[in-house]
């Protein structure tokens, strides 16, 4: 019986195919126009796992492909591994670097396989943040000196009787353990372990009016959803973070920069000039990040939308 069933199914399929299929467009009918990409060649672009970076990558890749005819290969990698790629020739461009002095020393100064390619124009801010409702209800909390008085408010099942200071992904730059110790705060740093966990904690805190204080940073697409409020730590002065164990001041403002492989910088590719000239504001980046994260556009479509609205900025990158 099974064979009979199978055979009739086969016959039916064949019939259906014969009836419906023999029309329709053939593969290769619409020849895609061959881009004259000879001059540019292939650009290997690392994409770090946060949406802001993806916004940078989307726009640069879009312009490089459309205006310069490059072939852009995006590789989704954690930062550390992307830096390795400079030395092996698998990565040409990193479009958003946060500090990482140790890696700069290793790959730029010591191994000489990578070079700096200027600032992205984005200002990186790191610090401790509160959900908006809490900052509105307790404006005094934005000064770090009041944190000890209110430590009990931030107690959780994880903080061992102290207040909880929520930290994020292990790859984030953080001095928080030293800060808590040196500012004599009655808090325990609890590692959420991922940006996802951090955002979920803030989202939940705002929705259910729970008190949370945690590490966060700008530029970040999440600010479009929730305008977190920064806590003022003792102001940053040059050199106050020189000894990691003794830090007792706020994080410096990061000027995010671009790193490219030495080989790519010397190649004379027009894409290198584009990467070097690429520069925009936090608002620009957040805008594209919003298209991707909230409006669910593909990175390419998001980039197209922004580029069409900001042609003059793009022309400046291209030296037009």
């Amino acid at each position, binding site marked *: 019986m099974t064979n009979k069933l199978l055979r009739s199914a086969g016959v039916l399929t064949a019939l259906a195919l014969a009836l419906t299929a023999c029309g329709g467009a053939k593969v290769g009918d619409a020849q895609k126009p061959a881009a004259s990409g000879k001059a540019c060649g292939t650009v290997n672009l690392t994409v770090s796992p946060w*949406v802001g970076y993806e916004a940078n990558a989307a726009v640069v890749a879009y312009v490089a492909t459309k205006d310069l005819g490059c072939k852009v290969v995006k590789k989704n990698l954690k930062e*550390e591994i992307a830096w390795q790629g400079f030395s092996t020739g698998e990565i040409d461009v990193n479009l958003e670097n946060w500090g990482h002095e140790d890696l700069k020393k290793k790959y730029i100064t010591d191994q000489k396989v990578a070079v700096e390619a200027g600032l992205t124009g984005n200002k990186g801010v790191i610090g401790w943040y509160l959900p908006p409702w809490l900052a509105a209800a307790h404006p005094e909390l934005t000064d770090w000196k009041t944190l000890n008085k209110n430590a009990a408010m931030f107690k*959780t099942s994880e903080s061992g009787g102290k207040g909880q200071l929520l930290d994020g992904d*292990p790859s984030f730059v953080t001095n928080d353990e030293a800060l808590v110790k040196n500012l004599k705060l009655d808090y325990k740093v609890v*590692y959420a372990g991922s940006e996802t966990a951090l955002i979920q904690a803030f989202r939940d805190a705002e929705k259910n009016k729970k008190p949370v204080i945690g590490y966060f940073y700008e530029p970040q697409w999440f600010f479009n959803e929730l305008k977190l409020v920064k806590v003022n730590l003792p102001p940053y002065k040059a050199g106050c973070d020189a000894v990691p164990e003794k830090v007792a001041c706020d994080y410096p403002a990061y000027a995010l920069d671009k790193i490219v492989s030495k080989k790519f910088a010397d190649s004379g590719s027009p894409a290198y000039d584009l990467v070097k000239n690429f520069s925009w504001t936090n608002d620009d980046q957040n805008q594209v990040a919003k298209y991707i994260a909230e409006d669910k556009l593909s990175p390419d479509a998001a980039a197209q939308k922004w580029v069409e609205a900001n042609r003059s900025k793009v022309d400046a990158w291209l030296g037009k």
Partner: protein
Amino acid sequence: MASITGSVEIRVRKPRRTVIAGVLVVGWVAAWFVLSGVDTLTIGGQETTALHRWLTEHRDFLGRGNAFFDAIRIAVDHLVVLLQNVLSQPAYGRPVPVVGWLGVVAIAAYLAWAFGNWKVAVLAAAGLTFVGLQGLWQESMDTLSLTIAAVALSLLVGIPLGIWAGLSNRAFKVATLILDLMQTLPTFVYLAPLTLFFAIGPAAATIATLIYAAPPVVRLTAHAIRSVPAESVEAARSLGSTGGQTLFKVLLPMSRSTVVVGINQTIMAALSMVTVAALIDAPGLGQTVLKALQTLDVGVAFNAGLAIVVIAIVLDRVTTAAGDRPWRTASVRRRVLLAAGGLAVLVAVWFSRTYVWAAEFPTDVGVGSRIAVTATDVTTWGQDVFGGFTYGVRDAVTEGLLNPLEALLTESPWWLVTVVIVALAAVLGSWRSAVPAAVCLGLLVATGVWHDGMVTLASTLLATVVVVAVGIVLGVWTGRNQRADSWLRPVLDAGQTMPPFVYLVPFLALFGTSRFTAIAAAVVFAVPVTTKIVADGIRAVPVATVEAANSVGSSSWQVISKVQLPVARRAITLAVNQGLIYVLSMVVVGGLVGAGALGYDVAAGFAQSELYGKGLAAGLAIVLLGVMLDRITQAAARRTRKFS
């Protein structure tokens, strides 16, 4: 009869051991009150030991530029790229892959039918079509390419190794040790170093998957060869068969079905690596899941996770059917049918190469977005309804169980914990388990992450207790009830292959960032394997034994507790053991949702170059915990068995 006398003897003997163990624990608690906070070996998040720094410095020592690794890399790269060209990526100047979706579905269904039966052929076709309807055809084919490559290489390496381990006792012992290491070492630990050896790209991703996925097929092949009755081998020998003939004519055919179970488990393991390997740019569904997580898009992550589950279920059922099918020479009728089917497949492939509708999966059906929206709605609903309640549960469990246990382990001096655990191992097991326990604890001190190790141990113990409790209840239920089994099995499959990253977001919403969240995730991941093994053991209890118990008027509770569970004890030991290993393999994922400790250390070592050595040490600490607990539970199980 044996079981009755056994239970009497246990009643005589058991109190003595439990009393000693109880005295030990009470003494420990008393000592903890006095010594709390002394010699706890605490180390800060950014602090490292000399060993960690040494490991970090010597990280690039082996590095690349080695002709051996390069040759492997190039060969593996070519294999994956070839598969991608055929299945998923535009290739050879064509805007579409060599075989379009219709061709892939036809080939898959044909193979399922030829090696299995027509039912799984229909399932394969339906499953793949569903994945296409989800709007994830290309991603799924990328994942499939990588899985096929990794599984093929696993078999190429694993089956010969398994045969060797099956034939030689010494090879078996060495292999067991290495396989334990491969399965418990967190994938995050070797993911970054692999890119040093094999560069960024398909090769590193495939090899990472291979390391994680090969052990089951090696183990089960060895097990199968060793289980072939000695008489069969003797008979072959006495008829003058050479070693090779015995292997190919007797040993391999007789162990075929178990080897297929091994292949099946290898495929499952490979699929569960999909999202992790995406961290080093492995193409496919893993990328979709990770990208969705960056914006906490539960719906899209679930859609992609569901595609992985569907592929897993299809591959599982097809290989299971292939394993069940007895060897037989095909009849003429079947040969004709096979040939006709082959012709139909060729026609379908031709269509898929010629017409766009058969090459690219039509995109105008939006099942995927509907699934995503529904998943999001259900998640939000669940959060709104259960939100407050789940926080209460979390706090009760954390305050009542986890914190006291963790305090006892972390605040006691390290030497006290070592003495107590070694003593417990000796009492519950034997000196045979006390020695490895002492060695493991000593090495754990040497890794420099003792304190984090104890935090992780506390969560692991709690999670394993829950897993075993739930696993035994579900296992007994499904083992006794065929209908329950067929309902629960897809759910269990989903629990095993749904990437944990997918349910982390809802869990975070329900339980916040906490150790409890990590425990909940580990329970979801580990309960299926425990349940399956227990159910298998219950089903293996001879029908006659159960009926004998029924005939003397035992209630079902008595049948379960006095007959089925004791007889299935061996399976239950294995279930506890596997549950434990699965819980440990989730420690790193737990580190990403607030469990901290070893999981966080490993993830940090992967992300920060200066913490590389510490991450490696933490990974080894997880392995040490696994080996220690494994040896103690096994010895304890042996001990109980002796008296029955």
